[in-house]
């Protein structure tokens, strides 16, 4: 009988009332029980069932894309998701933004002593659901427990591998003057949703995080327009930071048209209230695509027919500019820069 498959401890985990304690990370039976009853049962797949420390698998043909991301979001539960679903979406999206088809993920947990097992179970279930929806398997993992006061409930790291099909060349350095800039939907939803649940914030909102896996949307886009040059998910630092990165990597300028940038009214209102700029608020289910001008309308049409790109829009164009400035035509007809953000706008939104 498997050591993990069925607990040898007399009583099963008390998920309803129990809490994480130091023994859950100590390497003894309690840890084995936590892994078996919580993680393995939720993530179940052929690789985990082998109970090795490492997963062994064959990748489909193509170049391998690999990424890692750590998640420390506070609060861990927010409207539209939690740290678990976010941890899967984040890494899946990073792989997809390389033009890759995500295949396998790892999951590392740092748990703080005292974390309710019920919360952990909910988070793990969300991860399992998110992985299933995105078509990836969580094939290996790790759990550590830190003393109370040394963590913030739970931190999760996910790493992932995927495969980039031949003929796809995506990179932040590939934008060329004349290219057009597209986005798949409204900006700032995630940051504002998380912000609204901060303990020192007392505004309520209907805004849900946009946290979602974008690999299916990317597949659809690349099948129709393999010539897409840049894909990037504007997470921390939002659209503003991401476009500045691309402009610098490609050695170009970018000009946005404020009137074309989709932002929900509720997000605009919340940002007005808090003194934030939606262009710098984090997203977890959005992507920026840059493609040659002749492909842009086709790409936009493909995005808009996809469930995750209904509000897609062409929001700007790439210019020649050795200073690599990102500028924006404002809605009243002036021009301003969209600069890197100074300091922090929203701490720990992912």
């Amino acid at each position: 009988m498997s050591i993990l498959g069925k607990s040898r401890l007399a009583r099963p985990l008390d998920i309803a009332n129990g809490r994480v304690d130091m023994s859950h990370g100590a390497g003894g039976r309690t840890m084995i029980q936590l892994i078996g009853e919580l993680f393995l049962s939720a993530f179940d797949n052929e690789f985990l069932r082998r109970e090795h420390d490492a997963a062994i698998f064959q990748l489909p043909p193509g170049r391998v894309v690999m990424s890692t991301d750590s998640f420390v979001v506070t609060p861990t539960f927010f409207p539209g998701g939690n740290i678990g679903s976010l941890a899967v979406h984040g890494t899946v999206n990073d792989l997809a933004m390389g033009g890759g088809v995500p295949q396998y993920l790892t999951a590392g947990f740092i748990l703080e002593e005292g974390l309710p097992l019920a919360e952990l179970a909910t988070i793990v279930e969300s991860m399992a659901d998110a992985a299933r929806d995105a078509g990836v398997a969580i094939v290996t993992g790790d759990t550590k427990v830190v003393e109370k006061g040394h963590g913030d409930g739970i931190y999760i790291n996910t790493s992932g591998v995927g495969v980039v099909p031949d003929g796809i060349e995506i990179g932040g350095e590939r934008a060329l003057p004349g290219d057009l800039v597209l986005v798949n939907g409204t900006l700032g939803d995630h940051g504002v949703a998380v912000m609204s649940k901060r303990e020192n914030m007392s505004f309520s909102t209907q805004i849900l995080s946009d946290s979602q896996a974008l690999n299916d949307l990317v597949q659809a886009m690349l099948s129709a327009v393999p010539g897409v040059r840049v894909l990037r998910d504007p997470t921390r630092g939002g659209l503003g930071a991401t476009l500045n990165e691309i402009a610098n990597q490609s050695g170009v300028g970018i000009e946005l048209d404020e009137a074309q940038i989709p932002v929900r009214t509720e997000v605009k209102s919340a940002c007005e209230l808090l003194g934030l700029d939606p262009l710098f608020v984090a997203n977890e289910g959005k992507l920026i695509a840059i493609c040659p001008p002749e492909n842009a309308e086709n790409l936009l049409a493909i995005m808009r027919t996809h469930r995750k790109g209904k509000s897609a829009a062409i929001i700007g164009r790439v210019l020649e500019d050795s200073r690599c400035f990102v500028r924006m035509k404002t809605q009243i007809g002036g021009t301003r820069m969209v600069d890197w953000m100074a300091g922090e706008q929203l701490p720990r939104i992912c």
Partner: protein
Amino acid sequence: MKYIEAFRDPALASGLASAIAAATDPSRTYRFMEFCGGHTHAIARYGIEDLLPQNVRMIHGPGCPVCVLPVGRVDVAVGLATQNDLILCTYADLMRVPGTRFQSLIKARAQQADVRMVYSILDALKIAQDNPTRQVVFFAIGFETTTPPTAAAIMRARALGLKNFSVHCNHVLTPPAMRAILGTYSDLGVPDVALDGFVGPAHVSAIIGTYPYEEFASVYKKPVVIAGFEPLDVMQSILQLIVQSNDGRAEVENEYTRAVNPEGNAKAQAIVTEVFEVRSSFGWRGLGEIPQSALKIRGEFSDYDAELRFSVDVPEARENKACECGDVLRGKTSPSQCKLFGDPCTPDNPMGACMVSSEGACAAQWTYGRFRQLGVREQAT
């Protein structure tokens, strides 16, 4: 929300731009000061300068609360946080303002001081209630807009009998600063800063009303148009200033009638008077000592006065000599004329307060407007 969109309407903006162009006399220049940092920010963020004729120039004023706080006061904030086992609460903008030897609250926090950024002084009150064994100090900054909430919080703390809450008051007053700008002359007897009028404060005026500006029209012969912070508000007020200048009139006009009435907010004025009294003098960065230009907590509320409750050792206040924040705040020089602008002074590496706050003239110019200048060296990122 529609309210906001309405004041950013592209068609109306274009109409106003045409009206401004038509009203402008090409044979002269117009120099208007927007007193408030909120207006400075709006002008930069919406690119309003692009919609103005070349001969209409906007001079940025000193109405940025953290910018006018002298270095010595920043040092006191840092000293309070680091030399006492207390929780120091303040508004975000103050966190990164460099004091003497570039010490700042954000650096103090990294060195284990308990500094907390709050959106409202009421959050600081709550922190005091939640931490009954610790002293909580709210480091209060700002013009007349943020003063009534501070007064209300002190009254609430007294009503609650809170013993662990106090306020370090740095509230300043708008009219004395405007007077200081208009009343400063060079050795040759010409005004330090030549102005044709003011875009008057928005939120400040909602509290104090329009009457306090009458002296600038009647005594100094400068038109004042009180304006909201939306781009159309600013453009409309500029148009009114141009028309007044052309007519040779100097009057106080109120463009921001949706929020400002002539008397202001009587209730807010009453609680401010109850809790605060005017200091005989206060040192401003850039403007120097200005008589009767700031508030302190009245004796009746001295139990809540952190200036009395805590002693702080501060270094001799030292400003960076090359930093021209002072002249920028007076409108005497523009941000990009400062030798430090962009190299090494940027929002990521501020040498002076005007580069820190989003309402600071240097930060606004750097963040939103530097593409207009040639030769500004882009910092490595």
